[in-house]
């Protein structure tokens, strides 16, 4: 019988996790929420050392130390733009850990199944679930990491037999799960884990690079559910509650993210499988456009009263946020009113632009959300689009059938002048042409955003 104080402590930790999530969803309380979660996690992990007579104490502590060091190192070193892949990696190892724990638990349960009624089928089913889904989450997260870190192509990977292989491994997983319940054996669990790895791979390979953040969120929810199932197996309420919280909120968050991009989760996952990539083409257009040099653009900007900057994924790629901030500061010093228009899905993860610009110390007040700023474009002299594309593409309003049709966009097309900074005529994430590039009021400034911004900055200073 677990002592009462232990159970109460676990319950208190579970409550803290609830408060942590609650805190994390508001801007003022987010940081303290995260700290509450961390404190609760530390307390919960410390508890078994006090009431259980644990073997291998030294080894366990060393393992914790290694993991902690690894986690801190990775978390400190990662750049803001690499956040999504870092979260993916952390999530993957968590899923892996859950699968391993479940395998060990299966190993311990097997002798007990000899005794009649000592193990109910539900426990075995939960164990199988954890092994399977934990492995899926692990493999899937590793692939997402590889895609985002550009260790492999970030375009959808599809091969002819994929749907069949996927179906077959799904059936195998179900069969193995049933076997785990009816005639449990460790090897069955191990095979189940391998099948899980395969499924994880097949699930994420066909997803296009830019959809990956949504898949990360989904796998995050998966891992939460495995932890919840693990909590059931281990009879531990804090695992159950914490895992379920993450599973439920993660699923909901995934749907929120997908909605912000005007997509459904099923479409993201299986779009490529159903034939046809989830992305449009990646080819450059060869229609004529008006391009200009930094000096011309500097004059446009230097004598504008009102400028709105639209940052996008390219800004993150070019790591040009600091240069951009400098440029904006110079413009403001010249008396121009400048704001940044933040589209909710600009970049490759929600809040990407906020994080990026915050890193460059851009004052919070200058970041204006889409709904607030959309009315101002028509009174704006110049919109400076830095590495963004889809978030200002009028096709979202005008072209039914386009992959982004229906997504709310920034009304850059209503401004007097639009300047695009990009490297080529290649389309953005959605792979469709942007009519705004060909608009007579639009000027293109080709080149890497960091280079261009540097030149632009000098040119503006020289005015």
């Amino acid at each position: 019988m677990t002592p009462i104080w232990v159970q109460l402590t676990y319950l208190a930790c579970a409550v803290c996790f609830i408060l942590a999530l609650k805190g994390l969803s508001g801007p003022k309380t987010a940081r303290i929420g995260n700290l509450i979660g961390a404190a609760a996690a530390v307390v919960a992990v410390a508890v078994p050392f006090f009431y259980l007579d644990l073997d291998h104490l030294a080894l366990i502590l060393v393992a914790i130390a290694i993991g902690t060091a690894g986690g801190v190192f990775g978390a400190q070193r990662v750049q803001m733009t690499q956040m999504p892949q870092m979260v993916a990696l952390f999530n993957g190892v968590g899923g892996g850990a859950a699968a391993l724990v479940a395998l060990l638990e299966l190993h311990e349960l097997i002798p007990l199944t000899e005794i009649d009624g000592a193990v109910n089928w539900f426990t075995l089913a939960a164990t199988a679930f954890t092994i399977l889904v934990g492995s899926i989450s692990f493999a899937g997260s590793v692939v997402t990491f590889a895609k985002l870190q550009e260790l492999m192509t970030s375009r959808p990977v599809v091969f002819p037999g994929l749907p069949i292989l996927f179906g077959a491994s799904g059936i195998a997983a179900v069969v193995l799960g049933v076997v785990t319940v009816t005639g449990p054996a460790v090897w069955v669990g191990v095979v189940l884990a391998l099948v899980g790895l395969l499924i994880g791979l097949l699930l994420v390979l066909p997803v296009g690079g830019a959809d990956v953040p949504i898949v990360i969120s989904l796998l995050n929810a998966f891992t939460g559910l495995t932890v919840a199932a693990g909590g059931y197996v281990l009879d531990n309420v804090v695992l159950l509650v914490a895992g379920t919280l993450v599973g439920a909120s993660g699923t909901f968050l995934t749907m929120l993210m997908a909605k912000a991009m005007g997509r459904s989760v099923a479409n993201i996952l299986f779009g490529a499988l159903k034939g046809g990539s989830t992305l449009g083409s990646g080819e450059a257009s060869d229609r004529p456009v008006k391009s200009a040099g930094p000096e011309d653009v500097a004059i446009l900007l230097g004598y504008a009263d009102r400028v709105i900057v639209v940052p996008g994924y390219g800004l993150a790629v070019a790591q040009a946020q600091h240069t951009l901030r400098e440029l904006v500061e110079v413009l403001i010093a010249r008396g121009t009113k400048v704001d940044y228009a933040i589209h909710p899905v600009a970049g490759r993860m929600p809040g990407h632009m906020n994080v990026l610009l915050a890193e460059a110390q851009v004052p919070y007040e200058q970041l204006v959300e889409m709904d607030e700023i959309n009315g101002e474009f028509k009174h704006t002299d110049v919109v400076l689009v830095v590495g963004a594309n889809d978030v200002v593409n009028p096709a979202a309003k005008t072209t039914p059938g386009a992959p982004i049709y229906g997504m709310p966009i920034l009304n850059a097309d209503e401004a007097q002048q639009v300047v695009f900074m990009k490297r080529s005529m290649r389309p953005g994430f959605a792979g469709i042409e942007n009519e705004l590039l060909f608009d007579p009021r639009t000027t293109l400034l080709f080149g890497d955003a960091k280079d261009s911004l540097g030149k632009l900055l000098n040119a503006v200073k020289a005015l």
Partner: protein
Amino acid sequence: MSEPIVWLTIFVLSVFVGIDVIAKVSSTLQTPLMSGANAIHGIILLGAVIVTGTTDNDVALVVGLVAIVLAAINMVGGFVVTDRMLQMFVRKKKPAPAPTSDGGAA
């Protein structure tokens, strides 16, 4: 109530809490929230410690230690990285280091 029903009840209630608790999140905070939730499921470390500390099989011990390392990475790394992200959001509320911003961007 019987044991599985108890757990089912707790599960169902936690689902509601999990959804309601984040229902009001702004899109700006979605990434830190995902990252924080990710850290929370690192609590599987607790399970890994218990299982490893009570096994007497050598293979199981090794597997358990691996699980502990992985879970600790998840948990610790998750909270640290989330804090790093959030630090950026919060830091520049008032002591904004942009002396020029008031004049033009108000």
